[in-house]
């Protein structure tokens, strides 16, 4: 049992990472990762929706005919996102002013439909909840890493304006990595996003290949 949860966690965070393995959700990924803070905001909002949508869809999966599952899932996800949007606007207005832009983008995030289709429609509620959470955390980490790299090269800072997103207590995150930096605009513009995603993807492949080679060289360790 624990092995299954460990596998779901591993899949979400690394092996089957939304951005770097499934190559899903690239549109919002490239669009919002001009800074680490933006990536974090988008990641957190997506995680919340992913968790809820996986729970709801796994709980109704028996009732939904396979032939009409896609429209049903889309309607459910879009409703969920709109509900989150409205309640944040009403009851957490300060947070909404920061995250509002990202929330509307989540509807078009194919990773959420992807998880509904690939996991939540076939597995129980607890497993699906964990899968949604871990996929979300993996997505958040990817966005923060991409945003961080682009921000450091593009404007010489890291987590700039984090206090707007997380509150003044988190202003310690804000760092100036390169003082007096003139800025390297290309990294902040969309082409920089493509380049950083490509390079990080290559890096992940290299790491995976090395660890696979290591595991093959030492089969006795791998089985322990």
């Amino acid at each position, binding site marked *: 049992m624990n092995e299954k949860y460990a596998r779901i966690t591993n899949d979400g965070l690394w092996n089957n990472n939304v951005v770097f393995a499934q190559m899903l959700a690239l549109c919002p990924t490239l669009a919002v990762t001009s800074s680490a803070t933006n990536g974090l905001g988008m990641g957190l909002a997506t995680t919340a929706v992913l968790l809820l949508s996986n729970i709801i869809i796994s709980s109704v999966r028996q009732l*939904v005919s396979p032939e009409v599952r896609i429209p049903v899932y889309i309607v459910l996800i879009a409703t969920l996102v709109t509900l989150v949007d409205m309640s944040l606007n009403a009851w957490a207005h300060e947070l909404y002013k920061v995250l509002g832009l990202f929330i509307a983008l989540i509807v078009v995030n194919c990773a959420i439909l992807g998880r509904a289709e690939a996991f939540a429609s076939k597995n129980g509620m607890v497993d699906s909840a964990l899968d949604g959470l871990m996929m979300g955390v993996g997505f958040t980490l990817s966005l923060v890493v991409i945003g961080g790299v682009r921000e450091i090269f593009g404007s010489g800072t890291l987590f700039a304006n984090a206090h707007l997103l997380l509150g003044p207590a988190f202003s310690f995150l804000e760092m100036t990595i390169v003082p007096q930096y003139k800025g390297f605009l290309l990294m902040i513009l969309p082409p920089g996003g493509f380049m950083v995603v490509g390079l990080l993807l290559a890096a992940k492949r290299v790491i995976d290949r090395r660890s696979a080679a290591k595991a093959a060289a030492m089969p006795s360790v791998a089985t322990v």
Partner: protein
Amino acid sequence: MKLEELREKLVYQGLLLGGVALLTSAALAFASRATEADIKAAEAADLKQSLAQVLPGEYENDLLKDTVTLPGKEGEVLVYRGRRAGKVDAVVYQVIGHGYAGNIVCVMGVSREGKILGVRVINHKETPGLGDKIEPAKGDWIHDFEGKWLGEPGAAKWAVKKDGGVFDQFAGATITPRGVVNAVKGGLEFFEGNKTQLLDEAGTKP
């Protein structure tokens, strides 16, 4: 009949889709009802706050209630007026600039003499990290307008530096500040053109 067989039926699928649509619309309608008042209240509080930012100091009346609507270049302009000793001492209104990604909605406060008391951007879709330095939280740029009027700098200098004016542009984003500068200039021209009504010189108390 078992659920698996039932799911194959066309009628079931139609009813399922209809049912899901009905349920979700009901949920949305309910949520919209439940949040409407709070969203309005939050937006009114936002508006009051942004009015206070561009109109520093105390006024004797409730700005949200002392308003006048005048025809502007881009449709009707709703003007909020702040009074001191019965006279209109300052006015606040929205101006709309055309940015890189759609409209930039600004509010500007103008004193009786036609000087800018403050400008704030309240809504925009400019590129995060590039154009969003027009927000006071992310840059001091917007404060450059304070104290300026149509004669200072002169009409030709009311532009970003790239266009021969006095206002800074940002690295990588010229269109955004240009849009804001043009909008503010348009706002000042609107003030000059409608001074009598704006300042309520006829003396009609609302």
